[in-house]
Every structure is written in C-alpha cells, then in structure tokens.
C-alpha cells in the first residue's frame, strides 16, 4: 500500500473514478461528499494526502482547506476543480497552503501523473508547500 488518500467530492461518479484510478496505483482510498465529513475523517484518521474539490455544497473546498490547516499544518492537500486553471482560485488556494492544484479539464492520465508527483513531493518535504 503506497499512500492513504482521502477523496472529497460531492459527485459520486467523480469520487468513484478517483478511487478506482488510485486503487490501480496501489493506493488506499477513503471518500466523502462534503467538507464537514472530511474534517471529521481527518480528526480520526491519518492520511498521506487529501484530494479536495473546490465547489462543494455547504462548506466550500476553500473553507474546508482553511479548517484542515487549523487542524494539521503539514497534511498535503491537493485542490481539484471543474473550473480549470483559474488564477483567482489558485491564488486563494495558495493562501491556505494547498500543496497542489489540478483542473479536471486536464487529460486523466496526466492528472494521475501530476497527482502522484504532488504526493511524492509533499511526502518528501514532509509538510505543505
């Protein structure tokens, strides 16, 4: 088992895809649909990395990131979004020390490669970038 990954996305097909893709990469995955659930899970369990969707119902991804940083400053969090590479969203994610930013508009194979690279970097540095 390579990494333990928490996937946070309100859309089940997206969560399932991430889980299936990452399992193929020999990762252990846990998935949830909201920022609130994610915070509870992070309090209880240790994850190597969190994949966090920006557009979530209720607590937004950016708010969730802020709360995660209050709990754990070194947990790698990669933001994912259907909005693509938006300067404003990237800047706000960086403000709360996200470890990476991935647009869902990227080809999937590339997303996996990038994701693995982010995780590797984050693990090596041992803290958020």
């Amino acid at each position, binding site marked *: 088992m390579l990494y333990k990954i928490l996937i946070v996305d309100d*859309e089940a*097909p*997206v969560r*399932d*895809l991430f889980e*299936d*893709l990452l399992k*193929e990469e020999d990762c252990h995955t846990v998935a949830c649909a909201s920022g609130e659930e994610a915070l509870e899970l992070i309090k209880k369990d240790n994850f190597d990395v969190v994949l966090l969707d920006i*557009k979530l119902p209720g607590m937004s991804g950016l708010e969730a990131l802020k709360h995660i940083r209050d709990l754990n400053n070194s947990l790698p969090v990669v933001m994912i*979004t*259907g*909005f*693509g590479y*938006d*300067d*404003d969203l990237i800047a706000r994610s960086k403000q709360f020390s996200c470890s990476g930013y991935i*647009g*869902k*508009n990227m*080809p*999937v*194979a590339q997303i996996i490669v990038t994701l693995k690279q982010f995780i590797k970097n984050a693990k090596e540095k041992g803290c958020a970038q």
Partner: protein
Amino acid sequence: MVTDIKEKLPDLIENAAVAVLYLDHNGSILFCNKKAESVAGVNRVEIIGKNWLAVLFKGASSIMIKEMFKAVMEDSMGYKRAKDFQCHMSSAEGSSRLISWSINPIFNKNNQTTEGCILFGHDITEIEEREASLKNIDDSLKNIFSIIKEYTLYVINLDAKITYFGMGGEAMLGWSKSDIIFKHASILHDTNDAASNLDFILQQARLFGKYETETKLVAKNKEVIPVVLTVNHFLDPTGKLTGYVFIAKDMTEKKKLENQIFQAEKLVALGQLSAGMAHEINNPLFVISGRLGMLKNEKLSQKVKDNLALIEGQTDRIRKLVDRILQFSRKSTPVLEEINVNQAIDNVLPLVHYNKLPQAKIEIKKSFEENMPQIKGDLHQLQEVFLNILINAYQSMPTGGTINIVTSNFKNLYAQIQITDMGMGIPEDSLKDIFMPFFSTKSDGTGLGLSICQNIIKNHNGIIELESQINKGSTFTIKLPFI
C-alpha cells in the same frame, strides 16, 4: 348733424392724440395742435408763421424731409400721394420721442395744384421699443438655438410643408434651411420606419394636442438618425391651429452608449453562464475520460479498441472546447514581464505548423523593427494571441500565399504588430462581430479565439483591430503600449 361736426372739428383737432401741423405751400406753419407742441417741445406762439423745417427739424434728416416735402408740393402729376417719414424729436418733457409723420397734400378747389399740406404725427416710441426688444429676444433665441446641436426644431403648416427649420437642424441632419423650407415634411421622415410615418404622427398630434415618439429622421446624406420626436400644435394668436411644431432630440450618442453597455452586460452574463456550464460539463467529462482510460488497459477486441479510440477523440474535443470556454470567461490578470515582441512572434512561428494546417505553400515574410523597446506583458497570453491570428491567416489561404508580419515602434509610445494575409477576407457585415464570443466565419470554429485575443490585448491596455477585404485579405493590427 353736419353743422354739429363742423363746429366741433377745431376742438377735436386741437385735442387729438395725434400731432397735427398745417403748412402752406412754402412750408410756413399755419396751425399746430397741442400734441404737436408737446412732441416737438415747442410753443405754438413761437413757431406759427415760421418755416417748419427750420424750427422743427434740424440736422441731417432735414434734407431728406425737405426733399420729401418738395415732392409732395410739386405733385403736378396729380397722384395726390401722401409721403411718410419717421424722426426723433425732443419732447416738452425732455425725452426723445420717435414720431411717424405723414405729409398729406391739400389741393386747391380745381384739384390741380397744391395749396399746402397737413401733417399727422403718431408717437410710435413705445411700439418701436417693443419691436426692438422683440427683435432682441429673437436674436438671442437664434443665438441660443445655434448652440443647441442635438435638437432640431421644425414647424410645418397644415399642408405638411416645412415653414421653419432651425436650431441644430443643420448640424444634426445636414439639411440647410434653403434645402428644406416649403418642402413636404415627408423629406425628413423615414418611410421604412412605422414610427416615423408622418400621417400617423400628425393624426396623433391632432387628436391629443401633443405626441411624443421614438423614431428616426432622414439626414441629407440619407443617413437615418435615431431621435425622440415631440410634436405640438402650432397656434396663431387667436388660438387657431395653423400647423405643428416638431422638436427632435438626437439619440445617436445615447443609442451608441446603450448598445455598448448592452454588449458589455451581455459579455459578463455570457462569461458567467459559460463558466457555470463549463464546470458542470467538466465533471461528467472527467468521469467519462477517466473510465475510458481505464478500459484501454483491458484486453479488448480490435473493434472495441477502435470504437473506444473514436469516443476518446470526441471526448477530447469536448474537453478542449470547454477549456476554451473557461479561458474566455476567466478574468485572468496578465503576469507581467519584460517582453521583446519580435522574439515572442519568432517563438510562435514554429508552433503554427503543428496545428493541422492546410498543406498549401505558405510563405512568411517578416519585417521587424530592429530597435524595438521591450513591453511589459504576459508572454504566454501574448503568444497565444499571435498564434491565434497566425493560424487564422493560414486557414484563410487554403491555396497558399504570403503572410506579412511587420513590427514597428510608434513614437516610443507603443509597439505595433501587423499581420497581413492574402486570404479570402471577411465580409463587411461580419467585421463588426468578429471579436464577439461564439461568432465564427469558419464551419468548425468555436468563435472564441478572437474574443479571447481581444480580452488579452485589452488586459494589456492595448488595442486590436481588423481590416479586411473580400478575396484580398485581412490585416490584424495590435498596439501594445511601452511602459
């Protein structure tokens, strides 16, 4: 009764409100009434028997009056015509009065020769003053009207003939007064516009006394000017309808502004809608392409593999389109760095070939300004603009041709980049829409390329313009300020 009047006549004349003088053939004063004494500021005792010109009229005007008097006296032709003149006199109260005199010849009994004349003098000082002040008002109004350029005022009579045309009419519509006076008012009204129909406007004005409508007027050069037209009854002093007064306010500038605001609002709404839609498409698309990718690793028949490849290709097409839409809707601020425009163009030239372009032979001629100062801009964004325009230029020449790229330094103010093709050009009616999102002249275009280019150049405080002629080609001009 007749005797009565004869008896009263001397009294009536003496006390008349009109100045009365009676002169003999030589101009000696025989009689002078009270009013004449008062307007001329004289005492009759001093002037009776004396020459009227000498005692009443001095100065230059006396020569003219003398000639007139002579003409009346020597009227041997028997026309019996009276003559009129006006002159200022110093009244008994010391004020200057303007008197209108008429010299009426008095003939002897056989009506052949003049015995003398009777003069009637009307004090017209107040009338003159009133007229002068009216003229002043008239002149001031004309002055005021000449300043107002965005209004045209015209009056028509009941036959719809224009009887007055003024204010900014000439500036606004190009018609001069002489072009238009006494012409039928339909000359100003656009027959293609129902709201401009003169009969209808007049009918409404007749019924309601006042009618206001948004319509169009026709300028001399046949241009149609949008106006707000107000029509009122034109009444004579007795209150009788004699025609209609039209006041037209030029709405050209307002319409232009409204249109710009409308376009801007449309773009903002379109941007928000696009971003929302793109996000909603991206999620399922991500799942589809992810699942497709996973399927490819399975052991599958060639037929399934081929089909999957097709699906993947089309999914990729949607992904790229959504990407483009997101790019368009995004307000991305340029990441500024110092850029050499020539270098930026050189960077993208090799990329043009990767974009599945027609195989026709296309030559690129460069004429670069050698001493080009650097500009501040986002290299990637600007290169995207150059690439986009170059690809358009390539695509416009399916049978080959030349693309000229000229860069120049305009007075150290801005870098000018001109990219000219010899392609099919863009129809004139499409030119105004060419930078609009989702507008495309190509069957397979998204219509976003040039609107993204325009956004990028605007974010760099620059200008992008297009000139084009059908079957001759197009020139894109980009101006980017040095700072």
